[in-house]
């Protein structure tokens, strides 16, 4: 970006809404994953030039229009709590920090919806609504941080509430979206799906009108299953009851929790927290069925079940000090394939310390969050573990599942997930809505892989980790032009 472009931004927003502070630029170059710098460099990453926090959708639109006019890449960012690289501003330019758009704009009890700005954290909205006797139909397990717009942009497929109320995408009444040229459009429910899961590549979500539900009574359970088979059978049946929350923790996961003192649960093959919700009659009916389904399981005291519910946003990271790095892979698996996939993972990770937590998703799928303990300071070992991530990608495809978020790192999987025709449609859509390719470039449909040497060595991942490290390191010292040439050869985008 040129200096005059940054000066122009200062005319659009106030001084305290912009930063070029060197430390900020470091923070806004990353998402949740502790990526080796060499890997980012080998992607040909350029540091962002500036971070802007718009105050309202109008300002957001002005910034996007300006960027479009001047061909400046824009990366919209919520809380950056995914690990797929969707929020990494790989081509530099402007990072749009949307956390500044965090107001509740309207609450309509009669028509049962709430209209909010895109950057509002789920936790704040949940607390606000529940104090009034209302609740959300779906929210992610990173609610204290995740923003409404970010969840929608990233695909919004798993979390609390979904087994009962379905995907949050179906609860959207309308979105206000800023298109690449700065126009603001308001979507109808069907049209909203165009932007859900598009990771900010087709437009920037500014406002969301979202259905809300009367908060019912809740009942909390926690079960332990001695066999995987029994556990999965029960899980499948319990999901049919459409609970408000259901998850499972495998033995490895509970071991981790116990090790750091975050719980003191017995080690069972599967531990299943469950929350049912509804009217008195509904609860009574479901309670009977729950007892039938779980008759052979160990039922823990309600106090423990409630604790589990209160810790639902924290469990996933609570044992991170054991790594102290954790490699996280999320897989969306059809319920019928669950047992097979779990066994496959077990054999794949035989040499590692790992644990699994699940989240219920829609359409009879379940999202597995696999945590592998690692130490990023031990590079050879870390790269070896990185190789699992790629294997997981293939695992998903073999079991007819989809990766949970494409972002940057999963773009190479796109041709495996979609047919060439479908990809062509997606690309034409991108070309039509964002002809100058300024909106979160190099993401989703635009396949981008690390530099040539790195990419070829990545194929050897798991075989000779040192080679990978060498490849990444050398790629990071390659002149940018060469890296970009590498990108072109690998099917990446060349500006």
């Amino acid at each position, binding site marked *: 970006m040129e200096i005059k472009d940054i000066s122009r931004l200062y005319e659009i927003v106030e001084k*305290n*809404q912009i*930063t070029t*502070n*060197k*430390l*900020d630029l*470091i*923070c*806004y170059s*990353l*998402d*949740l*994953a*502790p990526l080796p*710098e060499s890997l980012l460099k080998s992607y040909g990453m350029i540091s962002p030039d500036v*971070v802007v*926090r718009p105050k309202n959708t109008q300002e957001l639109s002005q910034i996007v229009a300006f960027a479009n006019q001047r061909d400046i890449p824009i990366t919209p960012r919520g*809380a*950056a*709590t995914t690990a797929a690289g969707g929020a990494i501003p790989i081509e530099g330019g402007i990072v749009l*920090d949307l*956390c*500044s758009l965090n107001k509740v704009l309207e609450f309509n009890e009669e028509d049962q919806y709430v209209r909010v700005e895109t950057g509002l*954290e789920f*936790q*704040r909205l949940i*607390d*606000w609504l529940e*104090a009034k006797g209302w609740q959300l139909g779906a929210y992610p397990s*990173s609610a*204290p*941080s995740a923003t409404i717009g970010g969840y929608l942009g990233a695909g919004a497929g798993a979390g609390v509430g979904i087994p009962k109320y379905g995907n949050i995408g179906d609860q959207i009444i309308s979105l206000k979206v800023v298109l690449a040229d700065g126009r603001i459009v308001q979507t109808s429910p069907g049209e909203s799906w165009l932007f859900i899961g598009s990771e900010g590549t087709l437009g920037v979500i500014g406002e969301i009108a979202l259905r809300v539900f009367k908060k019912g009574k809740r009942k909390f359970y926690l079960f332990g299953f001695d066999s995987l088979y029994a556990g999965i059978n029960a899980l499948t049946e319990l999901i049919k009851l459409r609970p408000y929350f259901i998850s499972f923790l495998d033995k490895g996961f509970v071991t981790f929790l116990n090790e750091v003192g975050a719980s003191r649960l017995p080690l069972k093959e599967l531990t299943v927290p469950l929350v049912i919700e509804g009217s008195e009659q509904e609860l009574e009916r479901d309670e009977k069925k729950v007892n039938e389904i779980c008759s052979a399981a160990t039922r823990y005291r309600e106090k423990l079940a409630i604790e589990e519910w209160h810790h639902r*946003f*924290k*469990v*996933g*990271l*609570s044992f*991170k*000090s054991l*790594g*102290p*790095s*954790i490699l996280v892979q999320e897989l969306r698996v059809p319920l019928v394939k669950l047992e097979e996939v779990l066994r496959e993972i077990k054999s794949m990770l035989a040499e590692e310390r790992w644990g699994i937590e699940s989240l219920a998703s829609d359409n009879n799928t379940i999202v597995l969050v696999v945590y592998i303990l690692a*130490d*990023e*300071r031990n590079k050879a070992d870390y790269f070896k573990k990185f190789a699992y991530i790629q294997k997981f990608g293939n695992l998903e495809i073999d079991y007819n599942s989809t990766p949970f978020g494409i972002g940057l790192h999963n773009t190479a999987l796109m041709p495996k997930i979609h047919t060439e025709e479908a990809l062509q449609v997606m690309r034409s859509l991108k070309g039509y809505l964002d002809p100058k390719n300024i909106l979160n470039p190099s993401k989703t449909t635009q396949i981008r892989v690390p530099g040539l040497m790195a990419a070829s060595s990545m194929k050897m991942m798991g075989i000779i980790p040192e080679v990978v490290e060498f490849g990444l390191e050398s790629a990071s010292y390659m002149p940018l032009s060469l890296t970009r040439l590498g990108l072109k050869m690998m099917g990446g985008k060349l500006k």
Partner: protein
Amino acid sequence: MKRSELVEAVYTCGSCGYCRFGCPVYQQVGFERVSVRGRMQFFKKLLEGKLDFDSCKDELVEAIYQCAGCENCTVECPTGIEFSPICEALREDLVNRGLLPENLKPVRDTLIEKSNPYGEARETRGSWIPKQHVPPKESKYLYFVSCTAAFSLNRVARSVVKILDDIGFEFTILGNEEECCGSPLLRLGEMEAAKEQINKNVEKFDKYGVETIFTACAGCYRTLSHYYPEDFKVLHTVQLFDKLIKEGKLVFDKEFPKKVLYFDGCDLGRHMDIYEEPRNILRAIPGLELVELDYNREKAVCCGGPLMGSFPDLAPNIAAEIVKEASEKGVELILTPCATCMLNFKSGAGVADVQIDVQDIPMFIPKFIKKQEKPKPPEESNP
């Protein structure tokens, strides 16, 4: 510096960003460099030699001092990272390199020279004290006055003394022999200078045979509890008053039919886990309606008070948000356990353009106390 602790935290941080939810500074500034996860990201680069300290010295120093030390992030953090002690250690490191920010140097110098942040003469520290408490005498109980009550808010100190004198509670006051507790110097990272003040105070405690120390200042209370030898029992006046109420020695018989907010100052709340005693005291006042903020007790958002000196533009804006919420809830009076909160709320009310009264608990309660029929003779043992 406890380098190992920083290293551990840097690699344990999962970048989930929960730390931002209740961070007063992040919620005001908005950029990631002031969030704990953001700091962990660039500290990691520093430790790994991928970021040159000198190339962003000013930015780093600012980021390390732009933390109120309120520990809200620790409550939210899934991995339990305690950033506040790390931040203090980093400040100590900066101080040792001569990098205390310029605007804080005069504060530091005053604290060391006068042993109070107000620049008042040491010889006037005890000039407010009623004559029956001069000079200091041997006593099991010591009222540790604090710089603020001694120099700036005498009313707080006079109230504490009057309440306790009226019920015949025996205690002593150090007067001019009291030093600053050390809290402000500790927060600046001036550990050595703070230790000197601490040692001088401890000498005096021993000299007068003190066993229990009570103070109305939340900052002193936290410092006396965590940074002093464990030989002394330390109480905050809210604990003392709560106990006296429970024992029937302190009775309120006048009404205050208004909505009151008790604000959980961090030094008393998150740092010391005291949440119920102050509320118990206020519930004992007839007619008083206690109002809670949406996020209270361990989730209370810090008022930003600790940043009044270092970031004077920032601190009142943080307080203004809380004042606005209180005002929307119909609160007419905010009560704090901490003079820093109180002063910052007053500025915050100005920023928010809201009419709201702010007081410290000892200042507020005397007018509701039931007059004793006749002064009780001093008792054998104090509570």
